[in-house]
């Protein structure tokens, strides 16, 4: 009954989406408020029904109801509860259900909090939202029904893929989807603006917080996924330029560009057409990512042959939405009025430069990801485009961008003075040069590129702090006055500082990890000692242990640095009987931002075990950077400017200010 109820709830959600796609548009045509308002109730009801559907699927997983195909294929009665829950989206059908649930959540949020949006704009936004939702409900119901039953229910399930049985699965996909799907809001707003043929600064004020929310989640989601791969896959890699990774990087790059162009539009009413286009492109890239991953087209072109219905269906959705919105854009954009003018050297100019580089970087990833596919279809030539290509083409695009980052916030709107900005950045420049000189002197004859890259990172961080010091008058006026000024600083300014500094922090981590990584690969026997980067690791012994649904081999390492004992490390290797697969659980020892990383390989016949030990200097900065960026985004989101418009009782506002 539960499965049927879940299925039925999904069908009802589709029905609601169909109503929501049509009625509000008619209402907006006729100026009928009642019809337009219908969008809000249907959006909220959609969330209710999809939420119910999702909850029911989760219940089925928790109950281990193996009469449902999805549960049978991805669950096991002995699996720990947390993985029974996360296993819901650890498969194709369930993850698509999560996708539409989040889409419904965002739709309902607009319906619930869009009180002071113009009625017709709200009606259009929700209608567009329902078009997307309707298409994906159809996709799930027609090709990937998670509630399908088995006639002869088996007694035990096939278990979830062991590599997915990790806390990462609880955090990473929901975060990523919140980001991906969050961009649907800016898409819906863009399409609604095109339909209405009207766009103003108020529109941008609405779109920016939504974009920011999506961007924060996407940033955290990508970073989380990267860290998960780093500790789970066993060789310490954290970014592989894999097509599925690129699929999430492209919307991030476009979304970051959108965030910055929406800023220009909000403040200066310029770059309107471009912002609309970026909104469309960002969500299109999210859809493309969904298509690439869900159709399996990138593993092989022949994935269509193995499951043609799914791939073709998503491709169809992709063509209709991307083609449709771009056609609408081509039709309507020329009629949108251009906004304020600005000189090339100005805050706007800097943000345009940011957009140029980010979109080019995005285009590079796009071409690199899809070129092999296109070439194979057209010429049946097979080529590979992998990490070496992207490192060579993508990285150089970020160098000029990073050089320019500190200038942006220091330039005034409309018309700026580059020389004055450069003068204010003198300290940052000196700091960067000093960092380069010290590093070059410290490791004479070592790699040259790495110190330069670190210098660039120092430049970005010091530049971000310069803007802050300038605004608060740090070191120029008494500290107490500075402190007061810092408190009065708009949260958005704080946000900019953290986000930009985060970029530099991540860069330091990336450079240190790739340049000064030390590794030790050998077969070790008990009592043998490995020496890596000054650390001594002594293998004390191997033990066996039985877990809930796996057996594991643990290796105990006693770790010491210069004779000082450190906490022991116990990497393990788990083998899961149901799937006949094994996973590696690396042991991590964190020292500051650096990590010692030990993972196990196969046991050899003579009682030894293959061991890989890495010392990764400052590796954690790679993920602290994005966390700082997301934190900056949250600060910016809490800016007064973005809260304005959300009606709040006066007392609540006063309380908030007191808390600041």
């Amino acid at each position, binding site marked *: 009954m539960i499965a049927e109820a879940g299925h039925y709830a999904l069908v009802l959600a589709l029905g609601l989406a169909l109503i929501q796609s049509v009625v509000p548009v008619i209402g907006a045509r006729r100026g009928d408020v009642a019809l337009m308002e219908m969008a809000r109730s249907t959006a909220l009801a959609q969330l209710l029904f999809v939420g119910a559907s999702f909850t029911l699927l989760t219940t089925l997983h928790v109950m281990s109801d193996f009469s449902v195909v999805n549960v049978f294929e991805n669950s096991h009665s002995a699996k720990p509860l947390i993985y029974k829950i996360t296993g819901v989206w650890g498969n194709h059908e369930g993850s698509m259900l999560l996708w539409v649930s989040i889409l419904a959540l965002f739709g309902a949020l607009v319906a619930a909090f869009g009180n002071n949006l113009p009625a017709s704009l709200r009606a259009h936004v929700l209608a567009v939202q329902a078009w997307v939702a309707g298409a994906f409900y159809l996709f799930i119901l027609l090709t990937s029904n998670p509630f399908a039953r088995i006639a002869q229910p088996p007694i035990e399930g096939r278990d979830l893929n062991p590599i997915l049985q990790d806390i990462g699965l609880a955090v990473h996909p929901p975060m990523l989807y919140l980001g991906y799907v969050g961009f649907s809001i800016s898409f819906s707003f863009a399409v609604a603006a095109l339909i209405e043929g009207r766009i103003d600064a108020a529109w941008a004020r609405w779109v920016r917080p939504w974009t920011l929310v999506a961007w924060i989640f996407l940033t955290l989601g990508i970073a989380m996924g990267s860290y998960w791969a780093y500790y789970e896959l066993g060789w310490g890699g954290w970014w592989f330029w894999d097509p599925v990774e690129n699929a999430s990087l492209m919307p991030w790059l476009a979304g970051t560009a959108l965030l910055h162009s929406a800023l220009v539009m909000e403040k200066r009413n310029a770059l309107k057409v471009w912002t609309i286009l970026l909104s469309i492109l960002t969500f299109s890239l999210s859809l493309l990512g969904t298509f690439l991953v869900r159709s399996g087209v990138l593993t092989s072109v022949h994935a269509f042959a193995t499951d043609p219905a799914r791939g073709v269906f998503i491709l169809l959705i992709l063509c209709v939405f991307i083609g449709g919105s771009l056609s609408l854009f081509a039709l309507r954009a020329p009629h949108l009025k*251009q906004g304020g003018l600005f000189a*090339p050297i100005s805050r706007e100019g800097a943000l345009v430069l940011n957009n140029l580089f980010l979109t080019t970087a995005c285009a590079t990833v796009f*071409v690199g990801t899809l070129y092999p596919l296109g070439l194979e279809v057209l010429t049946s030539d097979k080529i590979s485009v992998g990490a*070496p290509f992207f490192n060579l083409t993508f990285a150089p695009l970020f160098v000029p961008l990073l050089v320019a980052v500190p200038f942006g916030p220091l330039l005034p709107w409309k018309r700026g003075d580059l020389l004055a900005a450069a003068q204010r950045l003198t300290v940052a420049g000196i700091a960067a040069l000093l960092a380069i000189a010290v590093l070059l002197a410290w490791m004479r004859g070592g790699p040259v590129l790495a110190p330069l890259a670190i210098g660039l990172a120092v430049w970005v961080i010091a530049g971000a702090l310069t803007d802050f010091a300038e605004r608060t008058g740090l070191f120029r006026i008494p500290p107490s006055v500075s402190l007061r000024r810092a408190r009065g600083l708009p949260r958005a300014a704080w946000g900019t500082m953290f986000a930009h500094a985060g970029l530099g922090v991540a860069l330091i981590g990336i450079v240190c990890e790739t340049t000064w990584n030390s590794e030790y690969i050998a077969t070790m026997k008990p009592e043998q000692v490995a020496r890596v980067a000054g650390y001594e690791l002594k293998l004390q012994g191997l033990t066996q242990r039985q877990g809930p649904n796996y057996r594991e081999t643990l290796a105990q390492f006693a770790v010491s640095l210069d004779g000082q004992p450190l906490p022991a490390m116990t990497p393990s290797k788990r083998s899961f009987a149901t799937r006949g697969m094994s996973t590696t659980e690396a042991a991590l020892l964190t020292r500051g931002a650096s990590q010692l990383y030990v993972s196990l390989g*196969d046991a050899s016949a003579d009682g030894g075990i293959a061991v890989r030990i890495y010392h990764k200097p400052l590796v954690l900065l790679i993920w602290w950077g994005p966390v700082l960026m997301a934190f900056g985004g949250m600060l910016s989101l809490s800016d007064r400017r973005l809260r304005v418009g959300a009606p709040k009782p006066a007392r609540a506002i006063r309380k908030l200010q007191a808390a600041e």
Partner: protein
Amino acid sequence: MKRAATILALAAAIAFGSPAYAVQPDEILADPIKEARARELSKELRCMVCQNQSIDDSDAPLARDLRLLVRERISAGDTDSQVLDFLVARYGEFVLLKPRFNPHTVLLWLLPPLALMGGGIALWVYSNRRRRAGVSDDESVLKLSPEEVARLEELLASDPSVSSREPHP
């Protein structure tokens, strides 16, 4: 889910081979310089049965065979490019993760710089045009051009009803 899918693909790779590691202890060459060369080359070579993984990262048995082959060629005294040529002759261009520049990959290699240049030129042309069409000087936004002044005077002179149409308070 993207990451999960990567992991799924990796898991598939693991599933049909014995669970093994990327570079394994028994593969490593005694000469550290040659080994370092082998590692660098491995990063540029694709494990053909995996999803976009280099043989340096992959656990698949084929990747191991290729790693051993690379080390064999290096030990036999091949230069880096000879090793790559050897592998391309055997397995085709597909084995290279960084495609070579040839008529088929022109677009791939040139698109990023062209996109940047094209974008830059478009911006430059656009901002020039807008500035010329709009304002060359801040004041001229408010000032009427001589043609506009003439036309305004003409309108005021020819249409006496303008003022009478205004509703009087």
